[in-house]
């Protein structure tokens, strides 16, 4: 499952890209203290004044176009930039595998109510997972 947000900024894709990848700029809007090596495989550490700390691994870097971070606690976040007449459209998509799993299982369970010995028509985990399992 995922959460998406779309917003258009009156700024160039390069300006938005810098705001997403430059630790000093990230400290102006995302977290209070930021370390980020914005290269594929690079690490990010985001700290907030309330004591919260989140770590991430940079999965995808396509400068000016797409950035994907994998949170070490839950899910991943994808930023997609597109130049538009008014400036730059930013699409943010934060998703999580864990809840998708939970919801699929629940849907499957509901489908089998009344058939206590029914078997799953397809093994959810028959195929290797598409991303790493923690």
């Amino acid at each position, binding site marked *: *499952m995922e*959460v998406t*947000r779309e*917003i258009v*900024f*009156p*700024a160039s894709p390069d*300006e*938005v890209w810098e*705001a997403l990848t430059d630790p000093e*700029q990230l400290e*102006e*809007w*995302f977290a209070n203290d930021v370390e980020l090596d914005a290269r594929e495989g690079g690490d990010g550490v985001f700290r907030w004044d309330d004591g919260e700390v989140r770590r991430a691994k940079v999965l995808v870097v396509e400068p000016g176009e797409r950035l994907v971070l994998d949170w070490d*606690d*839950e899910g991943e976040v994808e930023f997609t930039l597109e130049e538009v007449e008014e400036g730059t459209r*930013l699409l*943010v998509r*934060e998703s*999580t595998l*864990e*809840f998708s*799993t*939970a*919801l699929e*299982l*629940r849907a*499957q*369970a509901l489908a*089998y*109510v*009344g*058939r*206590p*010995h*029914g*078997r*799953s028509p397809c*093994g*959810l*985990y028959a195929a290797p997972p598409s991303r790493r*399992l*923690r």
Partner: protein
Amino acid sequence: MKDPTGRVFDALADPNRRYVLEALASRETATATELAAELPVTRQAVAKHLVALNEAGLVERRREGRETLYQLTPAPLGAAMDWMAGVGAEWDARLAALRKHLRNRRS
């Protein structure tokens, strides 16, 4: 996004616990013994995972005679809704801050 959301995530983070949930999802109720028969793990291991899943609110248990029956709960749905609302609100606030930041850099 901490408890109870965090506990659901922690419980689902273990692949073996997801296998237990999958086995449980294909039937209305099951005992630890029945689940162990379907999975390449011992009854003791299944029982341990069921305790963790129960603490996370993902499965509920009830006694029936000498048996303990386990069943999936709708809890993940509520936790998932909480996750969506929480993450959505965080992004609304961050993107408003980013808009302000970009405006400040231009002026």
